[in-house]
């Protein structure tokens, strides 16, 4: 299964570390597990997708394109996002 390499650093941050209200673009989905990768891609979490973090507790909820997704922290760890400035 294809898994793209991790691009951390100035380019991207894991979705799990973002605060509610953050916006950005998915630059990478990196998981060692094929199941997680294909599930996320199937839900539209692919490079280029615009995301907005809606809440971080009790679970992480974010808007990806027009889909509202709830994920556990471990899954959010593998979604790498390039953030825009945090509004509000």
């Amino acid at each position, binding site marked *: *299964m*294809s898994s*793209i390499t991790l691009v951390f650093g100035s380019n991207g941050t894991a979705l799990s570390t973002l605060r509610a209200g953050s916006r950005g673009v998915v630059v990478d989905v990196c998981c060692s597990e*094929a*199941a*997680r*990768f*294909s*599930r*996320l*891609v*199937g*839900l*539209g979490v*692919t*490079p*280029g*997708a615009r995301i907005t973090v*809606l*809440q971080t*507790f*009790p*679970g992480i*909820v974010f808007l990806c*394109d*027009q*889909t*509202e*997704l*709830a*994920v*556990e922290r*471990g*899954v959010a760890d593998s979604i790498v996002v390039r953030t825009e400035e945090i509004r509000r």
Partner: protein
Amino acid sequence: MSCHVLHERAGSVAPPLRLRARPLRVALVGQPNVGKSVVFGRLTGRYVTVSNYPGTTVAVTTGRALVGAEVCDVIDTPGVTALDGLVSEDERITRDVVDSDQTDLVVQVADARNLRRALLLTAQLADVGKPMVLALNMVDEAFARGIAIDVPALAEALRIPVVEMVAVEGRGLPELRDALACAARPHVPAHPHASGRAVWAHQLTERVRRVSTLSLASVQETLARATRRPVTGLPILAAVLYALYLFVGVFGAQTLVKLLEDGVFGRGINPAATWLADRFIPIPLARDFFVGQYGLITMGLTYAIAIVLPVVATFFLMFGFLEDSGYIPRLAIFCDRLFRVMGLNGKAVLPMVLGLGCDTMATMTTRILGTPKERLIAILLLALGIPCSAQLATIMGILGGISFTALATLFGVVLGQMVLVGWLAARLLTGDRSEFVLELPPIRWPRLGNLLTKTRLRVWWYLGEAVPLFLAGTALLFALDRIGALTIIAAAGRPIVTGLLGLPPATAQIFVMGFLRRDYGAAGLFQLAHSGELTGVQAVVALTVMTLFVPCVANFLMMVRERGIRTGLAIVGVITPIAVFTGAGLNYVLDHLGVRF
């Protein structure tokens, strides 16, 4: 854009509509919760349950539709997020339909708001190589969100017909029928990897879609936010449960039941039936069979129609409302951590809440869960602790009349047992837990038409399912009573029923009834409590045992169908002692603490 042009471009073979030996088979495929079942209903005139959450459809339904002059078989399939890679059981069903040689055409139903995701699936469907039509559903909602799609450009890029629809209103249906005749193989560049397809889908979406200003301040958005945040979400959950209690437990189980049981049956039907029987049936045995203590009319029909029906009908109405509003999946956010203790994830809230409607149906819905271990745990917990609608309402009807603490004790004990058993099962069973990733449907105002249709069909289904069993059960009880077996059962059950559980001997026969159907047993308890034969503690103990007890026959058969006879029997073997010992423990503790509800 005409059909003709499309075919020239696609260079495909002859149009698929022609004389043939069997009807053309058209599969409706798409991501979860995009409205496949609505399109199916519109095409075929057959109603399949439509709700606002992913995973409503977990089995295949086939119906006939007339397209032009040709009769087609249309197949409604469970939603899929992806066709390749690891898929859950409901998704495998869809993949099999798509791959089948019997399927001639694929109509991909897509949510117009989520074109990028839809195209990811289009690319996978293209690999299968069947002629396709793309139906962009819910364009009204997409429009409201400022999304506009250049349909001709999209059709040209994919080289298949693309139709815009608002299926719930029937808009776009004629266009879809016309488009079927022009179905073609989609033109998607070959990508060996999912990531390549993702890039293609992204680029095409950017090209044909315009997103203008996003206005997210509508009432729906506010509600959507309020229901998923803990500060507002938990009070809302409490309010929803209270409303459920008021509507089903008070209005249904008390007001309506009183009206039907005391009024219609107590003063009307039963005296009339008794009068008729006294007059026209000379044999006492036959007379008792209809109107005696275990009479078909005075007991069987009274239980089914007067006690359980009002409760089930009010529950289905309220439940349908919650289903269509998109509220239920949002509970998964709050439940995720608790469910993880039980080896499940938040997604399991869907079958669990559905179990409150009917455990049998919910057992089938466990197909949406990711791994076999999760399915097994969910099926076990459904059978163990989730009371079905009729049972839930009789619980509310009996204990609501006693005290709130009585109700809280029962739910506390049952929930505690579920967590404990789930925790043990998660550790003892082999296999994995899947990760929590759930799509939350938008909050919508339920459509009255769908709500009423759904409730009506479910009530009919209940009547068809329950009334015969209630009558058969009553006949069985009558026979057992006549041959004296009931006294033997009561005597045999005495050490457990009276000794361990501290219940009156008459409860033994109610547990026999509970084997047939849980709600039948619950209705029996209801009458016993009404006639003042149960103390508060006895009612709590009896209902706790009944709730934890083996599932009804239908649920058992469904467990066997889904997981095999060995698993089915094993689940019953585990649950029965748990139920009895929990009841005994509860009775012991309450007795020693001197609790009186």
